[in-house]
């Protein structure tokens, strides 16, 4: 506890890198530009901006010859030892003319379950940075960002905006924050798999990190379905899943995050809550686990059934009042609440 507390204090209370502190510094440094006085709306809540386009991505079926609904055998079983989730908050801190300077906060935490109560494993990661298209800024503005007491991320270092539209620049910053958030999640997950044997429930996919994707004690649970890993003819199977049914296991390449460190994983869909009278994605999650080399079909089936039962056990207590309660494990909601409190 002492170690965790000390680490947390170091991370959070070094130089004040919070949004308001950084915004004050920028306003002082960039006096020739009008400071923002209102409380900006988080880009995560903005209706405009970068969103992943809906897509279908076919995946290699590893279980059976044809995709089909499979009823789980056995009762749900609580096996997870910990839950990992990340969070981000993206706010425009300053406008240098038409160029937005975005303050981003990314964080991740693992909440370990001991005696049915959740406590923090090690220390959470909380990082603040300014995200801006540095080449578009004047020398003075760039210097002011450097002097703001927080890391500066050049949003054009890896990718140019589609246009010079300020909103496009905002989207660019948003995507970088999103990537950083995934990075801190992976960083924390890698710490876990390096030292812990307990089973870790990760909110989201695990393919982004080869170390994590190869670990037997990690399960990724994806609850958003902008991209569906299925052939068009298999959509009916996914939509028709009943509670306690899953699809056959498929192989998903680590291509969603096109990085060399990614790795293929085994994945399947599972219905955790009845979608009767609701949209077909209600209570639908996609599970990712390490893809064992040369795994026999029977082994794969048992693994998928076991993991599905473990995930089903996390339906109680409900993650209410989160609107995604139908797909969210309570441990993940707890992690989100934790991060909301500390970031």
């Amino acid at each position, binding site marked *: 506890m002492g170690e965790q507390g000390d680490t947390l204090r170091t991370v959070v209370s070094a130089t004040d890198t919070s949004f308001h502190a950084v915004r004050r510094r920028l306003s002082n440094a960039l006096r020739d530009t009008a400071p923002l006085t209102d409380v900006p709306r988080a880009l995560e809540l903005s209706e405009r901006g970068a969103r992943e386009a809906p897509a279908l991505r076919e995946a290699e079926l590893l279980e059976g010859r044809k995709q089909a609904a499979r009823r789980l055998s056995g009762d749900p079983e609580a096996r997870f030892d910990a839950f990992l989730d990340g969070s981000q908050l993206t706010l425009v801190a300053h406008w240098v003319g038409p160029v937005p300077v975005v303050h981003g906060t990314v964080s991740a935490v693992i909440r370990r379950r001991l005696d*049915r109560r959740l406590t923090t494993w090690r220390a959470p990661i909380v990082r603040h940075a300014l995200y801006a298209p540095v080449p578009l800024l004047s020398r003075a503005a760039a210097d002011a960002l450097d002097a703001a007491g927080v890391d500066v991320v050049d949003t054009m270092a890896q990718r140019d905006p589609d246009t010079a539209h300020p909103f496009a620049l905002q989207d660019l910053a948003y995507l970088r924050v999103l990537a950083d958030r995934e990075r801190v999640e992976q960083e924390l997950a890698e710490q876990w798999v390096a030292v812990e044997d307990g089973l870790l429930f990760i909110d989201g996919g695990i393919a982004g990190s080869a170390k994590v994707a190869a670990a037997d004690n990690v399960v990724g649970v994806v609850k958003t379905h902008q991209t569906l890993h299925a052939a068009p003819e298999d959509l009916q199977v996914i939509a028709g899943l009943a509670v306690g049914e899953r699809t056959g296991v498929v192989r998903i390449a680590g291509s969603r995050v096109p990085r060399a460190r990614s790795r293929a994983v085994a994945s399947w869909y599972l219905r955790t809550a009845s979608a009767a009278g609701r949209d077909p994605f209600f209570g639908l999650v996609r599970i990712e686990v390490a893809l064992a080399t040369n795994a026999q079909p029977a082994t794969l089936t048992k693994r998928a059934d076991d993991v599905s039962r473990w995930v089903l056990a996390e339906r109680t207590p409900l993650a209410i009042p989160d609107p995604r309660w139908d797909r969210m494990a309570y441990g993940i909601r707890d992690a989100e609440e934790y991060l909301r409190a500390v970031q």
Partner: protein
Amino acid sequence: MGRVVATEKKPNTAHEFHFWTSLDSPIGIGTIVRVDGETPVGGQVPRVYGIVVEGYSYTDLQSPIHDVLGHDGAPASATQAATLRAEIRLYTAHVLRQIPEEPLQPVPMGTVALASDEDVAVALRMDTYLKPGESTGIPAGVYRAGAMEAPIYLDAEFLLGPEAAHLNISGVSGLATKTSAVEWLMSSIFTHFPRQMGSVAAVCFNVKGPDLLFLDQPGELDDADRALYERLEVAPKPFDKVRYFAPYMAKGFSLNTIRSNEKLSQNVSPLTWGLNEVMQFAEVLLNRDDVDAKADALIDFLQERVINREFTDPVLTTPHRVRSFAELETFFRDLLRGMEDRSSGEHWRTHHVATIRKVRNRLSNISTRCAGLVTDEGTVSDLPFGSFQDRTVYVVDVASLEEDAQDLIFARVVSKLREHLERRDLGVSHVVVFVDELNKYAPGDGQDTYVRKMLLDISERGRYLGLVLFGAQQFRSQVHRRVVGNSGTSLYGRMDMDELATPGYAVLSPATRTKLATLEKGQLMVRHPHFAQPIFVRFPRPAVMRGRDGAELFPPAAEVTLEVAVFRSLRQLDPAISLDWVKRTIAGHEEHVVIRARNETVQARPDRVQPFFEARFRRVVPAEPLAAPAAAPLRHGPSSDDPYGF
């Protein structure tokens, strides 16, 4: 242990703050905590002491229905949930003390810890009167939280005067908490009352049952009690010096008390008064609606001109010196006969004959209504006013008496205590007067009585004299406001919910009121002038025999004959006296004469009891049968020289 929290909706103030703790913390309602601030004010990091008055627990659920849905309406399945919901223990505390005390600011954010012994002393300002060598602390009990236990002291100067005084204790009947607490506290006072403040004694009125009748007998204690005694530095033993007083029964043979077992009679004394003792308090016994101004004037006249004086009047056949009810009756008889014989009209010295008859009737009636306490012949056996002893309990048993007699005893004893304390010649400098059923003697409503006026007077002015009232009652709300309001220290045992719903308890938080309604035996809530907030303490069982146990172990003596009653009374003065001697001595004498002789002997306590007792009787010559006188002849026979009788 916890952290202070404040939100816009639930901010902290200078008098109240909120904090949360881990789920397994030993914090509860009544726990004293210490807050260490984080930001110095004026160069000093603020430290705040508080007492928990309310607790909240909730989870991240927004509606109970969500929990129902989450468990499919089956409560049993909740126990199988993989994870327990996030839960909070949120407490509200009232500030006991802030350091520094100025500027008085809202409680800052900071860490919360259980108060240690030293913290408790500072929080309750006990540090101001527990200075080594000049401590005026009287242990009231221990405050417990978690594994911590701290003694709680009352300030003798605020308990027994002169700064403040008096103690009031409330609680439901049947738990013996009130009596036990007072007995314990008196032990504590007798042990810890500082010598530099003078001496102290207690006068207890036993108004019901055998509650206070075995204070000199050891009671049962368990190890936990003994540990408390040790912690509070009070010897776990009954009172060393106790004296009991009780009037006689109406017949006058034996004392009217449950403590009449012969084994315990050595420290039981009769309580009897004559005309002189009673007349000063006649107002207590006379119905004010009945005794009008005219009767009152005659009573005043009698007190000023007749009683204890040589009084002559043309109407009277003889001078009168009235010293007893019997002599008063003789005076009235002579007066009324004189008025009739002399046809002096319907008035005597402006007093109408009807008024005289009425006053005669009412005053003569006193010795009948208070038979056993008030004697016709004027024998007096009283409390030792003027020679009270330090650390001694004087118990007056009035439990079996009629209400009038109880009122008379109460009024006179307290008045005498006050008189002697004013003159500083009582024998002790402080007297604790314990009165149970205070709502009966000083009710908040109803007509004003002499006893209530006296209690109000003690409450308001007693602390300057060292006359301290310890009052107990079931319903504090029914006691006169000025009596409870002047009580510097208040104790509360388990309370009735209806009583707690009265306005007097509105200052307590709902949680504190609920705790009061469920207090265990041996627990009290204490309010004391030094304490900014009420404190919960635990006190040990008194080391004296419970009344019920005493009555079983020492059953009251059965009704006895006059001979046995006199024998038992005199044997206390002279163990050599035998029952046969008593029988011989009183043989042939009327009952009231024997009782008067016994009373006079007990009152005088002579060195030579037998001669003194014998001298109380006029010699009675035993009746002897007369020899039959020789019958006188109807006529003398003829003499020899006059055979014909001529």
